[in-house]
């Protein structure tokens, strides 16, 4: 279990099944470490979902095969249902997949029947009871900015950009697409950092495009964003999605072959919070990052 111990009387609404996904444990485990520390501080009991698979990814896997995409997503939802807990996700892509799969299975009985029959063969059953919560929603709506501020040891005097990421704008029908991005901004501000906006904040980082056209993704998506950050004197970029994080970090390395040299730190929101809560770069294993996040942490902690 990550965070508050199960026996400590945590309120039900602060207890979740934590969906780690593929990217965080396999590419940026420092996010896993930071999440653990932040959840512990904020009394969030996050019980790691056991035996989960890839969400699977909301762009590539979904296009490869919709039935496979829905089946794996439904299985992941069923695992949380077995625990009687809502799902807490740390990744925009996982959020989109799990929320959309849930909506499709709710609205399309024929598809739900077909997927249910496949799941039954694996011994699983999905009944549509589980809610999917992005970490941003949990931090803002369940924990609250005021509580977060109480744990900030030393306000982060940093000029930061927020990259909400495309999938963060996904909402159920009639919802406000800016709800989560605005919550994200408030959480970053709670650390004492200045949020510096620019007109390219909504531009995709290019991660899904990389697998089809790397040069296009780097030059048309990532490069303009990096140039805008540099122009605005940004000291770091905060994301809520590990795929965006990987794109910002490996993308800056790959851009060197096109003559563009940038070295802007990029980190996940839970890492920023952990830094603000006083954890050291070493405790957070920030050396795992491929951008100078460690140096950013050393500057402020």
């Amino acid at each position, binding site marked *: 279990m990550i965070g508050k111990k199960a026996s400590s009387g945590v309120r039900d609404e602060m207890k979740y099944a934590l969906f780690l996904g593929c990217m965080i444990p396999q590419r940026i485990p420092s996010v896993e470490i930071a999440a653990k520390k932040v959840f512990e501080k904020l009394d969030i009991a996050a019980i790691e979902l056991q*035996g989960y698979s890839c969400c699977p990814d909301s762009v590539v896997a979904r296009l490869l095969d919709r039935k*496979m995409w*829905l089946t794996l997503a439904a*299985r992941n939802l069923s695992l949380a249902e077995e625990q009687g807990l809502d799902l807490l996700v740390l990744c925009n892509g996982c959020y989109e997949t799990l929320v959309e799969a849930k909506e499709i299975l709710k609205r399309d009985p024929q598809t739900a029947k077909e997927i249910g*029959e496949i799941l039954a*063969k*694996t011994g699983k059953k999905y009944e549509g009871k589980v809610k999917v919560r992005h970490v941003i929603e949990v931090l803002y709506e369940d924990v609250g900015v005021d509580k977060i501020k109480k744990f900030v040891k030393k306000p982060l005097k940093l000029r930061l950009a927020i990259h909400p990421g495309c999938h963060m704008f996904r909402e159920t029908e009639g919802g406000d697409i800016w709800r989560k991005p605005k919550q994200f901004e408030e959480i970053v501000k709670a650390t004492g950092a200045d949020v510096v906006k620019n007109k390219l904040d909504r531009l995709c980082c290019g991660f899904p495009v990389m697998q089809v056209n790397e040069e296009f993704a780097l030059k048309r998506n990532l490069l303009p964003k990096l140039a805008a950050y540099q122009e605005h004197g940004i000291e770091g970029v905060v994301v809520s999605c590990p795929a965006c994080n990987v794109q910002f970090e490996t993308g800056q390395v790959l851009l060197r072959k096109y003559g563009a040299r940038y070295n802007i730190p990029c980190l996940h929101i839970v890492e920023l919070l952990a830094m603000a809560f006083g954890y050291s770069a070493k405790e957070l294993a920030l050396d795992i990052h491929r951008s100078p996040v460690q140096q950013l942490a050393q500057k402020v902690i």
Partner: protein
Amino acid sequence: MSKNELIEGIKKVGVGVLDVISQKRKTSVTIEPSIIRQVVQALLEHQPRFVIIAAVDLGMDIELLYHFDVEGKLVVVRTKIAKEYNQIDTIVDLMPAAEWAEKEAVELFGINFSAHPKSGHFVLPKDWPSDKPPLREAFKGVLPEQFCLVAESLVSTGMTAPMSQLMQRKREEAGLPPSPPASFANEKSLGEVREAMKGAEFDKKAGYDWKKGKLRRA
């Protein structure tokens, strides 16, 4: 002889008969390639007339459609040969009229009919290179090549990429368990995910070879 007798005779071949669809004037039988001779032997009970073998390049497989006429009604026996194995038994000794049709499939699609009696060109010019069958395309899966590794990992582990040893070491150094509690971490979950892949038939679409534990390649 009734149509039912014909169908029952084919079904008696047993394992390897995958599907039988019977229409008014046509019966379609789908089989594993390994039982082609047994199915033809079952058909011989009904004095069939051999019509043709049609071959279709499906990218990963070549489909062979053996056409027979049984008392004025069409019987089509369909089977797929994996391109990487590329072999099927000849039926020429059972049905001599199939000789030229098999020969044509050899030359145009490069299929090996084991124990086919004749060699040499039949439809192609004599100087046509035997390793360049003109109607055979390069091995090509349904999925775009750049997504094959992702598909292979999804089918085999349920994750988009396998966990590297380097990352396992880094996780341990950082105080985390070497692997997260994901599907690949225990046999039960892995079994469930693989069953889900089979149920969704994504393994077939991706061309996953369960015996080799990887995607099929040419």
